[in-house]
């Protein structure tokens, strides 16, 4: 299985290379990708350098252009495609059908991967994307149970990629506009679900409060771990109880089901986190490289090392990991 790793900067790209990535995905410095933050992502010089490094090590480079073009910015999305093709990206990760049409008409040879933001969860949908846009691979959203992924693998006309590690979303990945309720922005439209300009942290002697566009999202007591200030991960008062009414801050980790995923025929495992630092990329990719190598060596006798879990828990949001939807009994 191919290990697909995130890079939000050149040092993170190098960290992923050194730690054993098979493919690395990046974005440009604008709202054409779903991690649109100031100072993050690649300009053309950095992208070319990344490509040269990738070629030297036989690693693939993917470019994420995975937000939905807005009426005023179509030319920006076209330009991102033009730049990525000119760069020589091995695949473009795209969610929007209009943009896929643009790629197919102008660059018929260019590989397209369907982004997780496309939220394709059934065989009919995958078949549609294959027939209309000749996608080579689809990234499945983190909403499917293991059994459902298995059934999709049997019927899918394209290669499938699943998430192996990273912050977990509420269960409508790729279709979520919850944050726009407070901020007017959402991942698909503007590339972020808690736009930093709307985030305020308030520190006092006993607590830390997070606010999103002035709405109180959470209050952390002394020494209590904080999490990303997204609406879905806040604690809210429902009747008389205050709790994570929508979603608990937690990270997905699928180390323990590596053998199952391989058996099903999953072709690639994706690590989330282009917004995270080179240190995170290094630590997470190294663990996953070791795990995949151990599986290759031991096959069905593969077992998860406690050190791997300790490493991953440390960098996890909420400092806990779970199998998320994979563990659900849905069929």
């Amino acid at each position: 299985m191919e290990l697909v790793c995130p890079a939000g900067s050149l040092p993170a790209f190098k960290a992923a290379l050194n730690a054993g990535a098979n493919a690395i995905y990046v974005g440009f410095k604008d709202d054409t990708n779903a991690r649109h933050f100031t100072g993050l992502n690649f300009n053309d010089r950095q992208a070319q350098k990344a490509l040269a490094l990738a070629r030297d090590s036989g690693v693939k480079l993917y470019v994420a252009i995975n937000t939905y073009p807005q009426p005023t910015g179509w030319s920006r999305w076209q330009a991102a495609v033009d730049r990525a093709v000119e760069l020589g990206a091995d695949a473009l990760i795209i969610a929007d059908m209009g943009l896929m049409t643009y790629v197919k008409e102008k660059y018929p040879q260019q590989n397209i991967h369907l982004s997780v933001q496309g939220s394709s969860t059934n065989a009919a949908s995958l078949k549609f994307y294959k027939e209309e846009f000749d996608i080579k691979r689809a990234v499945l959203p983190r909403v499917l149970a293991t059994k459902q992924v298995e059934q999709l693998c049997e019927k899918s006309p394209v290669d499938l990629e699943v998430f192996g590690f990273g912050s977990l979303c509420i269960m409508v990945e790729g279709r979520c506009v919850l944050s726009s309720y407070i901020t007017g922005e959402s991942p698909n439209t503007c590339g972020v679900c808690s736009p930093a300009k709307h985030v305020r942290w308030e520190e006092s002697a006993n607590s830390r409060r997070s606010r999103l566009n002035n709405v109180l999202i959470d209050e952390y007591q002394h020494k209590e771990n904080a999490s990303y200030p997204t609406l879905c991960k806040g604690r809210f008062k429902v009747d008389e109880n205050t709790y994570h009414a929508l979603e608990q801050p937690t990270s997905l980790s699928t180390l323990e089901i590596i053998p199952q995923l391989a058996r099903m025929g999953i072709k690639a495992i994706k690590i989330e986190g282009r917004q995270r630092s080179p240190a995170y990329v290094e630590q997470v990719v190294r663990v996953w490289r070791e795990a995949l190598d151990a599986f290759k060596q031991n096959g069905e006798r593969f077992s998860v090392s406690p050190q791997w879990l300790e490493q991953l828990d440390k960098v996890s949001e909420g400092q806990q990991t779970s199998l998320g939807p994979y563990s659900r009994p849905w069929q």
Partner: protein
Amino acid sequence: MTLLTRSLSKTHNLIGKPVLARIHKLIPFRLKKKIIEEVLNRAFKQVIDDGDLEFLKGKVIVLNLSDLNESIFIGWNSSLQVLPRGEYDVEIRGDLDEFVTLALRKEDPDTLFFQRRICIQGDTELGLAVKNLIDSVDLEELPGAIRKGLSITETLYPYLMPSGAR
């Protein structure tokens, strides 16, 4: 943890840091300003050349080293500048050890933030942009003197801050 590590770490906390806190109070502001500006502008040369620091224009960032009781005010006007105390847009606060941990890329900044080891107050977008810019600096391409400084710190790191990677 070996006895050596334990005693070095203890010395660092009981003697090293208080002494450091005293020494830096004795250094005149103008000299400190000169040294810090020199290091910053060299370290961020590529980022500056790429024009990626323009967003800092008119903004003031404060690095608050809480255990040393020291705040460094930083601004941008064609180059990075250390400014006298005054109003600011965002404050990034933590103990010296946390900043060293970040400079050496031993830990992920988000992890330290989740664990409440660093705090960001004020203009979050500005703070996040600063974090991303620091992450984008390629340590391998830093000038020799700065690389050397980092490499010495890296050698001492496990002895002075055994709890760094909590």
